[in-house]
């Protein structure tokens, strides 16, 4: 990983917008406002607070929930048999699944069972997590009843302690972004990426490691989420990015920047959709028939998703 070129690229990006950048940094240095972690305060609703982190009860349930947390924050190490890339649950659900507007587990848990258009039937929470493994982790779905699913579900249930079932809690999911003033543009997005993202995620999107531990997650390429993941949709990625990135500076990017950089990231190559039918056109028509998916479209001369059937499951070498 050429971190030096990361910096160089970031600096080069800055030079192009030196005036803007200098003003931005001078204005925000050291006094950047916290991310909108409690936006519901503004709307007058009291946000739900999960129990203190790690204060699990000394019961069989508490032990299961504690295991769930461990899997949540280091998924490839704690559940290697199901993980096919370098991502962890916590990469998209910050603060161990506790943070509002970062698709927190306490808000998700109370919304299941739930009908999902993605698969056309009512899903249990366990089935929903199976989807995370299949798509976001580019891995294998743990069988229903598997210890990994039981632990993760227990952890989510623990976080939702005291939350009203079926309620749409403030902070749930990623706050949907209004349509961008200009149509999302991956060319502009590349500039945003260079300036705000490449330093950590790398100019090639491959992430960066501390020794063997992946610290900054890959955003595209063979070790990232596959085409079936929710965040492979531009609107979902834009909403996550706007609320949560750059890390610790959520809310810093403009809506337009978030849309543009999401369009850039989600028009890079990534692993095949496991629902691949044998035809890119047919797979697009059946599962990606939306302006939010670049699957089956050409980007930089590459047919996205055009690299054949899904690769065999390959857990991370360790």
């Amino acid at each position, binding site marked *: *990983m050429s*971190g*030096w070129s*990361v*910096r160089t690229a*970031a*600096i080069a990006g*800055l030079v192009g917008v030196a005036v803007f*950048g200098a003003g931005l*940094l001078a204005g*925000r*240095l*050291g*006094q*950047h406002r*916290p*991310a909108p*972690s409690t936006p519901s305060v503004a709307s007058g609703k009291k946000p739900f607070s999960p129990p203190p*982190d*790690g204060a699990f009860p000394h019961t069989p349930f508490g032990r299961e929930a504690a295991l769930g947390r461990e899997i949540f924050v*280091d998924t*490839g*190490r704690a559940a290697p048999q199901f993980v096919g890339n370098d991502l962890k649950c916590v990469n998209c659900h*910050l*603060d*161990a699944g*506790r*943070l509002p507007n970062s698709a927190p587990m306490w808000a998700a848990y109370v919304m299941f069972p739930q009908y999902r258009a993605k698969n056309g039937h009512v899903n249990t929470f366990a089935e929903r997590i199976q989807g995370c493994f299949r798509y976001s982790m580019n891995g294998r779905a743990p069988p229903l009843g598997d210890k990994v699913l039981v632990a993760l579900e227990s952890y989510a249930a623990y976080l939702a302690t005291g939350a009203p079932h079926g309620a749409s809690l403030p902070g749930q999911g990623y706050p949907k972004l209004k349509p961008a003033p200009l149509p999302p543009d991956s060319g502009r997005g590349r500039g945003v990426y260079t*300036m*705000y993202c490449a*330093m*950590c995620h790398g100019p090639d999107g491959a992430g*960066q*490691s*501390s*020794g*063997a*531990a992946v*610290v*900054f997650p890959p955003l595209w390429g063979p070790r990232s989420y596959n085409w079936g993941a929710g965040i492979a949709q531009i609107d979902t990625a834009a909403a996550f990015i706007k609320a949560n990135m*750059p*890390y*610790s*500076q*959520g809310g810093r990017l403009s809506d337009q920047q978030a849309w543009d950089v999401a369009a850039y990231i989600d028009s890079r190559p990534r692993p095949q959709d496991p629902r691949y039918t044998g035809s890119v056109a047919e797979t697009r028509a059946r599962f990606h028939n939306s302006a939010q998916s670049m699957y089956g479209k050409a980007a930089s001369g590459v047919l996205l998703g055009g690299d054949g059937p899904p690769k065999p499951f390959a857990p991370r070498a*360790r």
Partner: protein
Amino acid sequence: MSGRRFAAAGLALLACLGAGATAARGAAAGDPGRRIAAQGLAGGVPACGSCHGASGEGLAVQQAPRLAGLDARYLAEQLDRFASGARKNDVMTSVAKALTLDERRAVAAHFARLPTPSTTPHPAAHSDLARGQALAGRGDWAVNVPACGACHGPDGRGVGAVTPPLSGQSQAYLSAQLAAFRTGARRSDTLGLMNGIAARLSPADLQAAAAYYASLPAGAPARTGAGR
């Protein structure tokens, strides 16, 4: 086999050996990074080792960090920042300004090549290690502060050129840097990530985080396992 061919082969072998020996001597005596580290330069560059230790292990009383085993790109960038004024330190500013770009690269490469010392962890002074550990492992999202380890690695051993190692640096050095991030006297990176983080934490929290990392052994990032 003719005598001439045999002689030619022998000469070639001698030539190789000679070249190798010369190269080795050059690296020892001629490496400008190593020379500057050990002897400094006339005209305002003291030996790096006089503050950072002969092995680049750092010296807490001087707030001089460990340099041995750090990423060469990170070290070079810090020297560049001292030279440009983007990072300020009375001693280091004048040192970096007195070095050429090539000399800064050479010094950075020299310290990056040195083995990470097996330090005795520094005992914590007047700080809450449990709070430091919580900040390192979980952060404090109530004030939008991620876990230190989320960017510096699970053992605080750093990520390439992006984030430096924290483990095994002295509490004095870490505290001073966090304080400088907090006031903006040192800018962490183009995004000001550490500036925002340090500004949102209390001075006591910064002390606790510094004390916690100072209590961990220095070490290169683990090459096997998940680095935990």
